[in-house]
């Protein structure tokens, strides 16, 4: 018997008993990230309580999701100075999960929700492995960004980014496997998590078209056989089910099925030309003759540009389903205002994956980015805890 073959068979047998690196990596990085930020928090504040640390991390929308899990949806709007805000703008799926964890384990909403968020991010990272096409360096950079990057806070406290990214990744992996109906179910959960989840319906159609071509079909053939594609019809029909369930609930609760849209007036959001909004945001500080700092408005504008640029890269790489999902994932919130664009761009899994694939192509850049991300993660912790508009 050939020794090489025998050894490789043994190695293969051994391998089956091991947990693959792509599964362990996110776990390790998540644990390192949590411990590192906790250590920085203790160093900065002198407070040792882990619960205090989790409470300090829970700023802005985190409080809203926590209250939503605790008390459900509020009645007549009365929040903010204008007395016109309440929590109808926050989609329910994530808070339902936090509430369920609380019921099952008895953990507080804050602790249970924080653990859930971390585990959802780990799960999302593991699921994303097939999308990296065995490019481990890119996968490492992606995981490092999630758990040790400057936006790691979204992935360790009560925010919907972790759940949305996990569902998006699951959806695109299912599309890759041509399992459209299950992808549609995932899309339904996405639309129950964030309004941009609706965009996944378009991604399903584009992915099906591209898969048809990859499988040897023609453009004309795709449209000719479309009437037979009941799986696609079902998948697309499933995506809005999540948001529709929320709309029905709101109709009974408030009388307005679109209350989640209308209540956005309290946040100064109204539909307008996204490109005009982008232009206004980018030039605002220069109109005020501020050339020395980067204001949050400029940061939001740059984030939107980054998201759109990476959407173009996706299209160039032939990943049209990713590209259009990401492009409209940027334009939809941008059409209402530029606030929080950093968070909305970071919440788009294809943008993060494409950025990781792109920036890990060059080893020097990869090795430069790792410490840069880590330093930013540590430095931005007080900024995040201090309720900075930049990171919101």
């Amino acid at each position, binding site marked *: 018997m050939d020794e090489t073959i025998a050894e490789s068979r043994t190695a293969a047998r051994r391998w089956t008993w091991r947990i693959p690196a792509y599964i362990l990596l996110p776990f390790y990085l998540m644990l390192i990230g949590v411990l590192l930020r906790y250590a920085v928090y203790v160093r900065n504040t002198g407070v040792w309580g882990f619960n205090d640390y989790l409470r300090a991390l829970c700023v802005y929308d985190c409080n809203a999701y926590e209250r939503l899990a605790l008390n459900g949806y509020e009645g*007549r*709007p*009365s929040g903010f*100075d*204008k*007395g*016109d805000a309440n929590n109808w703008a926050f989609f329910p799926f994530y808070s339902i999960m936090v509430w369920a964890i609380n019921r099952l384990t008895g953990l507080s909403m804050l602790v249970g929700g924080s653990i859930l968020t971390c585990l959802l991010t780990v799960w999302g990272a593991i699921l994303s492995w097939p999308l990296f096409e065995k490019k481990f360096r890119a996968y490492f950079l992606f995981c490092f960004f999630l758990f040790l990057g400057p936006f790691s806070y979204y992935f360790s406290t009560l925010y919907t980014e972790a759940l949305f990214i996990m569902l998006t990744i699951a959806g695109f992996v299912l599309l890759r496997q041509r399992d459209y*109906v299950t992808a549609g179910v995932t899309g339904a959960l996405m639309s129950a998590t964030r309004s941009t989840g609706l965009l996944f319906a378009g991604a399903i159609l584009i992915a099906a078209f591209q898969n*048809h071509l990859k*499988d*040897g*079909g*023609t453009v004309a*053939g795709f449209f000719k*056989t479309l*009437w*037979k*594609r*009941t*799986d696609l*019809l*079902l998948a697309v*029909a*499933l995506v*809005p*089910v999540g948001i*529709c369930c929320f*709309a*029905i609930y709101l*109709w009974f609760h*408030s*009388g*307005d*099925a*679109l*209350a989640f849209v*209308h*209540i956005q*007036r309290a946040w*100064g*959001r*109204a539909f*307008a030309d996204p490109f005009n*909004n982008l232009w*206004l*945001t980018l030039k605002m500080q220069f109109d005020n003759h501020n050339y020395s700092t980067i204001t949050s408005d400029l940061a939001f504008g740059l984030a939107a540009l980054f998201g759109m640029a990476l959407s173009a890269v996706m299209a160039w790489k032939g990943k049209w389903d990713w590209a259009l999902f990401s492009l409209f994932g940027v334009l939809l919130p941008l059409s209402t*205002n*530029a606030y929080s664009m950093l968070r909305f761009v970071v919440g788009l899994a294809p943008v993060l994956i494409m950025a990781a694939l792109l920036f890990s192509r060059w080893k020097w850049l990869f090795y430069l980015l790792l410490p840069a991300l880590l330093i930013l993660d540590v430095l931005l912790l007080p900024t995040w805890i201090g309720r900075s508009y930049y990171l919101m």
Partner: protein
Amino acid sequence: MAPTYQPRAWHLAVVAMIVVFDLIVLYMVLKPNVTDDYRTYYIDRSASCFPRADNVATGYYPLGEPISFVPDRSGYELDTVRWCGFMPPSNTGIRSFGDYGILRIRMPLPDDDFLLTFSSWANTDSSKPERDVQVLVNDERVGTLAFTSAKRIDGRFLVPQIVARAGGKDENGNDVVEIKFMVPRTGPPGTNSEPITLQLRLEALRLAPLKSLTAELMARSNPIEEPSSSEPPSSSTSPSPRGSTSSEAPAAPKKKEAG
């Protein structure tokens, strides 16, 4: 070889159910079951503020008492008349937002005319054009404030009985008096589609029947008969159609002395 596809009946059955479900949602979207104030503020966007709930902004007000919107000043302090378009009281009073701010008073009115007085500021200065603020009571204009600088304007307007009663009565038989301050727009809408408007700041306000004011004045003119009165002297009770400008201390009366 071109891929082939097999249609499935159960797919179509589920799609049919989802379509029915979507139609129900569409009906709900097209037929909102909301109050008028919700519709005008959130759906039509024709209103610039959303009124506070009736159980919070009850409209209760001891008629004739000065209302202070600033902490540590004398006067009625419960935040019950701030109804729509004014932010919560702060150290400098209440500030308007949007096209108007409304204070709503609910109480039984005596058979009398009324005097509306208040101290107000606006976020303007002498380098800007005159900004006129219309003062309406129950949608009837009772006067105009002309802001030409950052100085205080003391509003002093006569409210005829017929105007004060034009707001109708609530379910408890109280007269409803809505005092509305309509501010001008000063800039085009920003990215949030909300127009930029003048911001009016109120520190104190009072609505008093003329008869009681006359009696009060007479009492002041004879301090021996009414020694316990601690109201600050009023410069004049004669109403004027436009507010008077002053750069002195706020018109809200100082805190009453103990005893």
